[in-house]
């Protein structure tokens, strides 16, 4: 009689535990995204005692012919690590893709997927400044001092297009020097220093 309560309680706990284990919904760690909401049951993606693998994903998602895909998705042809970037059960509206750039082929150009905010001014070698794990640049790095492409990024002020101002520059700062060809506004380096030195008119003998 005395053991009825503990024995009954134990049986209830065991029964409840078995029911929980057999109930798919009890183990669900979060709702599936809209894209996978029509999955019939857990075994659609999960192999019992093994889990989810890329093979399971590829039963529905095919990447053998990527020519029909948009350029930013074509790298999927060679990449088969679905779970590294895509994770489910984060809610119906959650974004299930989280890009891991370390998995990508080194030959891929960033501009194939990313819009170049520099409009081509900095070239195609994005990784010279940008990292793979973070897009954030660690401080601004100016091109070398002997660079000749200032006008790629810098625009001359309006004053430099003024004939009177330009005449002063030519007369005052190149006095006594023979000019074989007229100086162009984009030839900034003739008068200006480049970083790490100051942008001031250090190369000029006197200031205007």
């Amino acid at each position, binding site marked *: 009689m005395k053991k009825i309560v503990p024995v009954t309680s134990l049986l209830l706990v065991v029964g409840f535990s078995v029911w*929980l*284990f057999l109930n798919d919904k*009890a*183990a*669900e760690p979060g709702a599936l995204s809209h894209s996978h909401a029509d999955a019939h049951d*857990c075994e659609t993606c999960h192999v*019992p005692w093994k889990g989810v693998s890329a093979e399971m994903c590829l039963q529905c998602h095919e990447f053998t012919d990527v020519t029909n895909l948009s350029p930013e998705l074509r790298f999927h042809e060679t990449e088969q690590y679905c*779970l590294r970037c895509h994770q489910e059960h984060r809610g119906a509206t959650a974004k299930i893709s989280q890009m891991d750039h370390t998995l990508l082929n080194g030959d891929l150009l960033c501009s194939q997927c990313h819009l170049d905010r520099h409009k081509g001014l900095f070239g195609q070698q994005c990784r010279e400044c940008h990292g793979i794990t973070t897009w954030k640049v660690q401080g601004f790095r100016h091109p070398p001092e002997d660079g000749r492409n200032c006008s790629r990024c810098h625009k001359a002020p309006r004053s430099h297009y003024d004939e009177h101002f330009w005449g002063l520059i030519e007369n005052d700062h190149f006095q006594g020097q023979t000019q074989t060809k007229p100086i162009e506004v984009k030839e900034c380096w003739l008068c200006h220093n480049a970083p790490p030195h100051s942008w001031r008119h250090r190369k000029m003998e006197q200031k205007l």
Partner: protein
Amino acid sequence: MFNENNITALIAVFFVALVLGFFIFPSQPFCGSPAGHFLGIAGTIIMLLTLIYPFRKRVQGKKGKKNPINTHIYYGLIGPSLVVVHSGHDFSSLIGNLTFLSMLLVVLSGIVGKFLFKRVNRTLRDEKDDLAALKRLFRKRKDETAVLGCRLYLGLENAEPQEAAAGSVFSFQDTDEVAEERCRELVDIARSMAEREHAIEAFTATKNLFSRWTRMHIYLTVFLFAMILVHILTTVYYGLRWI
């Protein structure tokens, strides 16, 4: 500074802080990560170590100093603290929630049991010691004084005349100031004893309530370990994310 009570209190505060952090820093993917799983496994192993105490107490019959409860308390606080971090502050699956909730109840029932039961037990022991001392004093005074005579003399009870006649060693004529003083002292001691007995009754009732509390702690623990088992089995069944 770091005596046993302080350490226990510090760990309790740490655990409560983690529970509060649960609502402030939600991080869903952490529990399935390698670090998250490591914390969960470590926490579970430490929680399993808490079973050493009841095993020694109930199976081996070791009680008191042979089986100190402190290690049980440390394991019972450190293990769940790791599990709280493992949970990644995320309420998602039913099994996960039940496991976490039962763990919380087991720990809280343990903390309440530790602090309140200890206090009740100590007070009960003190009261019993006082009662024993009072009883000894009462017996001593009783031998020195005629109780039945006192009852009649003080007019405290409805003493029957034949009782007084049978047990009395002094009569109304024999009373003096010393006898009166002794009689009053005897009554005071008897009153104190009654008060102590009343307090002991109350504390014993509370202690019995706490024995039920302990039983509840045990039932909750059984439920917790059942939930942990189901949680582990489902996690392995549906696949560990880090393998």
